[in-house]
């Protein structure tokens, strides 16, 4: 090694992904480390714990074949990457090695990968509606620019297809702007990646994308750094080059497992299911990097995907994710089994920033049209009616449909239709928000008008098909 920095050949212990390096005087916390093995393999790592005379290093490479006879070079720098907008269109490994046969990137500037926090006072509250063309998202769980909205899924459900559809269709109605996708794969299968690649290729998104790939066969610990590299790039493009960046992180459950294996190697007292107590904080340092900044045009919108082990939403990974993200889109086995695509169940799903991105807002005398004035009311009413219908369906399972009251039967019918007409749509079907609201009104019109309690009278008068047909008659 002919680069700067001190080289040590004093590894005394290898514990999982951790190396204990002796005789190190004053390694920096989070310092970038390069490890070279006798067989010539090289990998990077970072300092996790530093003592007067030793350092504990986590390596982002494959742990098989690690040996005490490794050379460890301390670079003297905390982990940073070079940045420029030439990164767009490129493909890297989880530790930022080029995978596209192009030379390593050179940057206009370097930024730290681990510590990046937007000052809360500098944040611009997200408020621009992103139309994904998917009714159950746009109509009931709208996404806004700068939001972090994850998919909670399970193995075998079409989260990738939905994520790709969002990436393909996401637009701000009436705006043409500079956008790019940062795609970070963590431990996903090759065929899953191949699917994304094909999708991006066919729609031309590939040359608007930066890919950070750590697939199932790649080193596990690399997953610690991969999303942070992706986000560092996203922040740079958004806030230095005024771009709107959609970041897809998949699969966060694999990320958390990598974190857990480091914690286990450090013999830390776990909080739940073997995951460390700092899982919440650690996930926050990833998810919180989404956002908008005052005085800057760009934005970072985050769509993490995670698979819930055993479909259990109380599992630490989905649970702590839900505590950090601004809502969640939940995929449902039962809907999927019934052939509904996308099988997103609106009842437990939520977009917390929706209210700021939809409807019509009055600020003083100024009227800001975001989607349509009836949108918030309609969304609320759909929830309520669908919940009623699902309740009736449960009841019908016990006592049979004949046992239902007329009202219950009406709502059961509503729920069925709602799933088939509103939630269900094509993989390549791109609905405008107006179309989505029209479908909603058609369904709501079949309920008694006095049940439309969550909708303002004025909106009923204006948008209810009953009154509209009257208006058109007169």
């Amino acid at each position, binding site marked *: 090694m002919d680069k700067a920095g001190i080289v040590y050949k004093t590894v005394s212990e290898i514990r999982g992904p951790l190396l204990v390096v002796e005789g190190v*005087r*004053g*390694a*920096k*916390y*989070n*310092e970038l480390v390069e490890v070279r093995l006798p067989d010539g393999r090289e990998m990077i790592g970072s300092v*996790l*714990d*530093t*003592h*007067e005379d030793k350092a504990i290093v986590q390596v982002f490479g494959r742990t098989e074949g690690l040996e005490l006879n490794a050379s460890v070079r301390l670079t003297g720098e*905390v982990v940073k990457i070079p940045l420029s907008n030439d990164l767009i269109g490129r493909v890297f490994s989880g530790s930022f090695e080029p995978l596209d046969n192009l030379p390593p990137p050179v940057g206009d500037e370097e930024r*730290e990968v681990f*510590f*990046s*926090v*937007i*000052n*809360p*006072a*500098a*944040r611009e*509250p*997200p408020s621009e509606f992103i139309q994904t063309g998917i009714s159950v998202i746009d109509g009931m769980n709208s996404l806004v620019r700068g939001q972090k909205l994850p998919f909670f899924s399970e193995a075998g459900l079409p989260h990738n297809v939905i994520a790709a559809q969002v990436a393909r269709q996401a637009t701000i109605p009436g705006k043409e702007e500079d956008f790019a996708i940062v795609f970070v794969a963590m431990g996903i299968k090759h065929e899953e990646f191949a699917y994304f690649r094909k999708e991006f290729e066919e729609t031309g998104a590939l040359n608007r994308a930066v890919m950070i790939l750590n697939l199932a066969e790649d080193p596990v610990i690399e997953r610690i750094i991969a999303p942070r590299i992706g986000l560092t790039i996203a922040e740079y493009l958004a806030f230095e080059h005024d771009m709107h960046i959609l970041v897809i992180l998949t699969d966060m459950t694999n990320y958390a497992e990598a974190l857990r294996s480091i914690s286990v190697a450090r013999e830390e*007292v*776990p*909080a*739940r299911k073997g995951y460390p*107590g*700092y899982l*919440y*904080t650690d996930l*926050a340092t990833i998810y*919180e990097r989404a956002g908008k900044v*005052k*005085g*800057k045009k760009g934005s970072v919108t985050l769509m993490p995907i995670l698979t819930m082990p055993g479909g259990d939403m*109380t599992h630490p990974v989905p*649970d702590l994710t839900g*505590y*950090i993200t601004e*809502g969640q889109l939940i995929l449902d086995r039962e809907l999927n089994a019934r052939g509904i695509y996308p099988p997103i169940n609106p*009842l437990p799903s*939520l977009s917390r920033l929706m*209210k*700021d991105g939809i409807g019509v807002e009055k600020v003083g005398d100024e009227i800001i049209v975001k989607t349509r004035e009836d949108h*918030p009311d309609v969304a*609320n009413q759909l*929830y*309520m009616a669908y*919940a009623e219908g699902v309740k009736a369906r449960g009841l019908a399972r*016990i006592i049979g449909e004949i046992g*239902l*009251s007329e009202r*219950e039967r009406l709502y059961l019918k509503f729920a069925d239709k709602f799933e088939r007409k509103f939630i269900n749509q094509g993989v390549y079907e791109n609905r405008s928000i107006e179309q989505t609201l029209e479908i909603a009104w058609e369904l709501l019109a079949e309920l008694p008008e*006095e049940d439309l*309690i969550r909708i303002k*009278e*004025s909106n009923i008068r204006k948008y209810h098909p009953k009154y509209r047909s009257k208006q058109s008659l007169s």
Partner: protein
Amino acid sequence: MQEAGRIIRVNGPLILARNVPRARIGDVVHLGNEKLIGEIVRIKEDIVAIQCYEDTSGLKPREPVINTNEPLVAELGPGLLGQIFDGLEFSEIKLHEVYGPFIKRGVKIEKLDRKKKWEFVPKVKVGDEVTSGDVLGIVQETPLIEHRILVPIPLETYKPIEGKIKEIYEGKFNITETIAVIETKEGKTLNISMLQKWPVRIPRPYKARLKLEEPLITGQRVIDTFFPIAKGGTAAIPGGFGTGKTVTLQQLAKWSDADIIIYIGCGERGNEMADVIDKFPKLRDPRTGRLLIERSVFIANVSNLPVYARESSIYLGVTIGEYFRDQGYSVAIMADSTSRWAEALRDISGRLEEIPAERGFPAYLAERIAEFYERAGRVVTYGKDNRVGSLTIMGAVSPPGGDFSEPVTSITLRFVETLWALDKELAFKRHFPAIDWLMSLSKYHAALRKYWERIDPDFAALREKAISLLEEASKIEQIARIVGEKSLPEDQRLVLLASEIIREGFLVQNAFHPVDTFCPPEKQARMLRAIMEFYNLTYPLVEKGVPVEMIRGLKVSFTVPGRESEEELSLIMLLERMKEWSDVGKIDELRVKMKEAIRKLAEEYGL
């Protein structure tokens, strides 16, 4: 050169150092060449453990540790209101101006603004006898709040002083300039400025604790009517993610009738804080008509900021709260979320390899939580005029997996007097606030009875009746879930109908509805009366054989606010919608029409 200790280990946010001069627990130290701020938390022989309040990337062994020999203090004085602080009381607005949109390590700015001049109006004269807590003078900090500058309690002794005013000034001063000189009984001369300091971990003293008797009116019906909190009281709001902790606490921050609001975002989302910061300068207090920002202080220690600053943010918030309480104000603190603070305690305890109690939390967690809520109360403050001030504390709790038996929730419930338990099922149904009426409780009903009696003499009885209806309905619903509503007896169907009206018409309150976001107490009482009258009047009819479907179908001719003429409208629908009317008189009008309609129905059945 200053004497310094040496770092010997950097384990994330926990630092070990050797030979730190005159180390005491709680001393603030400066770490390394970047002078990161930390606090000494353990001492063993010549080694100290330090929790660092900033990101420690780049810090390394052998770097110096300088002891400031001072505890972590809050700076108190004009300039607090309308500010957004981080957990160490650095203004995030100022940090943004100086350093740009991203947080930097090791930056140093002043806590409170030293340059700004405030108009100081003295309230004492030369020669006056004063004691700690007396008002020396006032600064009109915002149009809404008069900042009272008190004779301080010296930090050396934490004991109140007595003395005489030797000099007192009037005019424009910054917070470090002398505005008064006091000669103490012991003959010492004290120069007093508007900037005072207080260690955040030490509760500020007062003369006496008082009984709680006034409600904190929040304008949220389920809280004020069913599970109220008193000024000076404590409340916890536990709930899984997305059940409404933050929205509820923000509603309380907006609409509570406290004089001062301290909102602590502890380990939560940046966008939420941005939203609060964006909204408050535009919203007006419904009572005073003034902007809410004029009475509010924000502490925004978001989740991706260094963990241990969560702890300081909580203590900082309470200390600022006590400072305003001591001026004679009613102060309300919202802490979202106390679980994140508890997790910070767990983190440090784990890194120190202490023996954990449950789920890795330290054994002293209960003690810390108790001490925190103990700082709430209604007190007679120091000072000759015996001002009364109060500090109300409301904390969110975020139980993993929504499981209330976990340590932080179960411990918190032991120390608070009001519980707003959030329910995931209600939240799924978009029944907001998702406060579960069967699980929640308030121990302040008796203390607040008088207040409500003045509004409606029957209030307590109506409320109790409503709660028992809701309880009955939930039992009936369990049966209905098995047999179907259709096969229930008519009187039970009426209970279901009445409870539906209570839920939809009273309990559900949309925080984002222009009118219903805030519901004054008079309107709450009127609405409750209308709904309970509905049940009391229809019950005898159903007893005598009138089918519930007929009652569900009742119509009244009514002019809905905002509409020109009378229309035949569903009574149930109107009862569920009256919350949206700002004209309370309309509710009474509906009551009259309702009685008429029910009487007519009775007549049709020959009753």
